């Protein structure tokens, strides 16, 4: 299974990580690496989440992440 990284911009608020990791958990995808940092002078945070999965898993996961109301944007950064 291929490694992939998703970059998300989301509200920097209590519970947001739970919403995001919940989508991974629902799809039974393990999170291998996670970085999380607030964006300067904004209410947003940026995070990178690395895990493993084939293309159909990635496509569906991205759609589910984009449905979260505290997530502003979702980009697959690896593989390009």
């Amino acid at each position: 299974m291929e490694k992939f990284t998703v970059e998300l911009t989301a509200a920097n608020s209590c519970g947001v990580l739970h919403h995001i990791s919940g989508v991974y958990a629902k799809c039974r995808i393990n999170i291998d690496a996670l970085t999380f940092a607030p964006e300067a002078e904004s209410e947003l945070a940026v995070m990178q989440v690395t895990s493993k999965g084939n293309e159909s898993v990635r496509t569906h996961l991205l759609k589910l992440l984009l449905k979260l109301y505290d997530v502003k944007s979702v980009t697959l950064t690896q593989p390009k």
Partner: protein
Amino acid sequence: MVRTGANIVIESLCRNGTETLFGYPGGAVLPIYEELYRNSYRLRHILCAHEQNAVHAADGYARTTGRPGVVIATSGPGAANLVTGIATAGLDSVPLVVITGNVSVPLLGKDSFQELDITSVTRGITKHNFAVNSPCELSRVIDAAFHIALDGRPGPVLIDIPKNVQNESCQEEDESSPLYFTRKRPLPALDALIRMLCESSRPLIYSGGGIISGRAWGELEELANRIDAPVVFSMMGLTAMRSSHPRNGGMCGMHGTALSAELLKKCDLILALGVRFSDRASGNCEKFREGKKIIHIDIDPSEINKNVSADIGITGSLKSVLTELLKTLPRQSRPEWQQFHKSIKLKNVPAEIKTLVPENLFPAVAKYCDEDCVIVTDVGQHQIWTMHYYPFKTPGSLLTSGGLGTMGYGLGAAIGSSVARGGKRTLLFTGDGSFGMSLQELATAVSQKLPLLIIICNNGVLGMVRQWQTMFYDQHYSHTTLNRQTDFPALARAFGAEGKKITTLEELDSALQDLAPDRPTVLDCRLDKDEWALPIIPPGGSIEEMITEKKGI
């Protein structure tokens, strides 16, 4: 202006159009209940017997009106009792705003009395949830909850409000907004779709709950006429066309009609509208799409290519996409395809028998119900019989737990629906097992003077599970025979409702002629334990494997 959190809750509910809410009080929502007391002239609170049923009632209210249902419960056990109802609404895309109280903020995280991290518990079953920390967040969080509940694909939103937040005050100018993001999508081009439709010789429309929740049944009928195609339905979409409509091909899926299976086998294109190709409806997905083109239109982008890959996938509200499509879609004629539909439809006419069997029970009850009567079911064989034998006449008139398949959904939902329609008669088909899960709510139907007609399909067994044990587990009836002595008519009377035992069609007929106008009536209809819900496609199977008759047992 300075207002308390509890007052802001009431103001915000009213501002968002709430007239009725369902709930159950407790320590952590006392400040809100105090405000409900003061505002009873403009907000009707229906006290249920159990929080789970309160959510089902709010769900029934929402499905009936198209507006979000509102429910309130206390922290801890009150909040925990909501879970099944929220999950039921979520899987059937029903808009709800659920308010829970919690212990005060300083007590959170300390296993305080009746503390429950309900936002964590409901993370996977809500569309979104909010944990509120200050009264100044409340007003806009509640606005956001109503917006999100209806935005795109509808669903439940939960707001958890600690008790101190309800008691504390906020100046209007200090109010803050929650940060959340919605996505607008432009209407996609429809040329390729029109071309594919025109090239098809045998298109079949497969219509689902999206047509019902999008209230796009008018557009559906116009589309079917325009392309001269039959329509089959998922359970959630069943009432979009009246049962007797010449284009109606019945329900498809595990318990679908043989007619729909024939149409699915023969068609060369499936135009799927507001469906999610659930395993229950499509069975083996590979076989389902074999040799066919698929066009899939749904409001939720994550549904496209999820279970069945589509040749064309379009994201948008059914109402707006179909309206746009109908502007340019040319009229088409397919006499041979029509003829095929007619010829197999005739083969499916049921045989005539005169006893109290499911084939007769449902039409007999329907004769006494208004055209716009709302029909609610519980879960089991009686649910499938309702789909097959009740002659539906009005779009959106069926409330059933399709996605989660929740036994015990029915009575609460029937109460909510009846309340939404000003206390009109609502019909509930339930099973002896299902009714056992929610019957305490008869107390609410009586206190609210609701003339529910409750038909218990009493077969003495958990019929649907027993049927599977007969078919797939060598008739090993492990814990599906109820062996109960419950006297349902006496129980109904104990609650202040009417109740009668029914063993023949004649008894049913006479009972239906004189129904109480101001309280529920429970008809305990005795059915044979070995009746089956047919046809059935074995789990994981395809339409070729459909079993239509009870053979060899």
